[in-house]
């Protein structure tokens, strides 16, 4: 099933600019969209698809709040053009786990009090998915190195590192 997205709400009067047709998979669903070439992936997700769990913190790839998985790899969606996602698969925080369940990282972030304001959390969790994909049994230092591209201002990272280690342990025990 391919959902066709409108570029702009006609009521708001779209601007007359060239558009590109892209198709991509978002959280397992095929999507087609007509987008301005300059449209950022994060805005495609947030503004056009209502996937507001992906946050914008710096528009320059330094904070990581906008981290999503592109073909399974964490990327900063504020510095990826929507057209660059053509033909690829995007996973956002909303698609990380089935609607009824939680990914082990989501569970461990809550269990370890690894979030306060929650704004960095979706990006941090998706970056952590990448850390655990590379090494399912990372040392605390490897976790810290792996999350270096994601800023948190509330937790001091302490409980985030604990949460990622706990999720790794749970996943290993469960596997």
């Amino acid at each position: 099933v391919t959902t066709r997205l409108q570029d702009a709400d006609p009521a708001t009067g779209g601007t007359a600019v060239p558009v590109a047709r892209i198709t991509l998979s978002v959280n397992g669903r095929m999507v087609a969209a007509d987008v301005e070439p300059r449209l950022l992936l994060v805005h495609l997700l947030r503004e056009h698809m209502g996937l507001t769990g992906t946050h914008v913190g710096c528009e320059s790839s330094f904070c990581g709040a906008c981290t999503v998985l592109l073909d399974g790899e964490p990327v900063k969606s504020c510095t990826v053009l929507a057209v660059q996602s053509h033909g690829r698969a995007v996973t956002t925080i909303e698609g990380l786990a089935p609607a009824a369940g939680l990914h082990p990282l989501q569970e461990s972030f809550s269990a370890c009090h690894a979030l306060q304001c929650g704004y960095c959390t979706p990006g941090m969790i998706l970056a952590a998915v990448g850390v655990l994909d590379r090494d399912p049994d990372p040392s605390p230092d490897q976790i810290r190195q792996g999350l270096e591209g994601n800023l948190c201002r509330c937790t001091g990272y302490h409980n985030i590192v604990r949460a990622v280690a706990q999720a790794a342990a749970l996943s290993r025990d469960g596997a």
Partner: protein
Amino acid sequence: MTSPLVGTDVRRREDGPLIRGAGRYVDDIKLPRELCAAFARSPHANARVLAVDTSAARATPGVVAAWTAADVSALGTVPVQAPMGELRPLLAAGAVRHAGEAVAMVVAHDRYAAADGAAAVRVAYEPLPAVTDVERAAAGDVLVHDHRDSNVVHTVEAGDAAAVAAAIASAGDDAVVVTQRMVNGRVVPTAIEPRGVLVDWPPGDPAAERVTIWSSTQVPWGLAGAVAAAFDLPISRVRAIAPQVGGAFGSKLNVYAEELLVCFAARATGRPVRWTETRREAMAATTHGRGWVATATLATDREGRILAYALTGLADLGAYLQSSSAIIPALGLFAAAGPYRIPAFHYRIDCVHTHAPSTDSYRGAGRPEAVYFLERSIDLVARELGVEPAAVRLANFWAPRDFPVTTPSGMAMDSGDYPRALTTLLDAADLPALREWQRGERAQGRVVGIGYAAFVEPGGIGPSYLAADGLSFAGYGLPAALNEGAVVRVNPDASVTVTTGSTSAGQGHGTAWSQLVADALGLGLDRVSVLSGDSSTLGMGIGSFASRSAAVGGTAVVQAATVVRDKAVAIAAALLEADPADVVLAGGVATAEGDPARQVSWAAIAETAYTPARLPEGLAPGLEADAWFDPPALVWAYGAHLAVVDVDPATGVVEVRRYLSVDDAGNLINPAIVEGQVHGGVVQGLGQALTEEVVFHPDGRLRTDSLEHYHLPVAANVPVLEGQMTTTPTGVNPLGVKGVGEGGAIAAPAAIANAVSDALAPLGAGHVDMPFRSPRVWAAIQAARPAPGR
């Protein structure tokens, strides 16, 4: 009997939506037909504005309207609490006084078109020399506001300079005196969520117009009041909502120009208008913190007993006041004498305008600055005396038996055990073993340091009489009060709605307040819902800042819940035909004491409360109470923190190897949340100590205008945080709770600076200012003369 929830690590109730990406921050809320705003901002730090031309902006595809200062002049200036300096125009008129100052506002169909429009605004500037350095600004070579004869606009002073001089003079050769100029530099609070505002102001009959504002703010009631005042509306028709707020740390404790301007744009266009701050804007248009340069003088006798302490310095306000810019040094004064007896004390901070973004509250607000200068001074004097710095601290702490204490800065402190905090810390670190390890490292040529700091964290602000010092939000049209309110309502189905004036930016009040209410009413956590951050739900809310939420807002919640419980007990007693004194409310039921078979459920009590025919005589229908708690005094959290650092002498790179903390916040409602507050505060302090620094180009433009150039702590550069708590309850509120939000940010810069100083001491280096970025540390090492005999 169920065990109490207060004091346990209840898992946060806020987390569910947040870990699924279902949080609702301002930019996640969408309204039909909304427009987006963007601002044209000055690239210059000081310039005359000769002309602003918005014609090209208006002609940009998608742009709906553009406005300049003349269009919005009726709205006045950005409101502040105490006008002890120059006020900010909503849009620059005739002159710009810092890079990033807004000159024009554009609204368009989407944020891209709005950005195009803002970029098309043509401004003719005549650039002028700028002064961003606070000491140069104080010297007055360049005036930021040329109708004034000085950039120094306000002074906070306390104590007795003559007494300090006399104490030092009379000690003569017995006095050990250190005097040091130190910088506690400008930093950016940097919530990861930038500011944002969305305004819905439907057109219609002006006599019935209503405005709803969603804003990433710490002060929704203040925002509603300020909008009501600016647009001459009754507060009943203004609703300000702080939805989920993605961090604040003081930077959202303000009503900003953009919030009023977006209201203006929504009214002018008849459509909802949104503005979402970019990070580059945030670096210049959201308030900065700290920015003090001061000279501290500390004198002790030969045994290290403090004779006198004086702090004289400058606080950088930036170009214009924001809410509390000029009041920060008064908050610093609260903590300026630390946990010490100081027989002669003087404090003077001059507030100075510069061509720079405004400063205002940032986690600790004046207290991290004041504590830093004092704790560095103690280490400097300990070095002069040739003793372990702990000896000087232990020789001067107030003893537990001394309380209540009136501090040298005139504040009443009710409780504390400062020697225990420091000795607990040094025991946990095993200081003798650490010093032994350090000697071994040094013998092998390595540069390692051990440093620690003790502090007080005066928080829990009120009491309301402090409003006389400009500490309330009277400037936003709120009463001159620093209390906090709460409403607790048991609904007919025995669910509970708690309304609080405390506004969370991630602190977990929803969980903590639920714990308080569930315990007070003897029912389950899942029965309790907490509403916060919505100005329409309470007549007034003050908000969350200065480590006050639990101590003031939490107390109000418990007081309201207690009134509700008493009425519920009266109803239950009637239903059980028991004496109210014998009724126990716990586990969702009321039981007649001594006869567990006689029970009535909370559901039956609640239903009865709303059923007049069944209500006991003399009771009015309903099961709801409000309470307003105005604390009689500040609460005084305190603690001691220790850092161990490595310095690479070849590169100047500083690494924090270990970090230990002991904090005392009195009784704890949720220890996990408290620990999280300590962690966050410590790492923000660590950032200030190691990497964070606002830097300007010589012409006044902001060099650190992005997160590429402004370096926040990252996980890889932060050590494991080895924290523990001691518990010394306060009597200032019935919960016995103190504040905890700011202690980490107060302690960490001082502890780390003392550790770096300790590391560099054998190399002969003197005081080095933060942040300890490698070029600065390397230069200090190069400049140091080797110590004699080394």
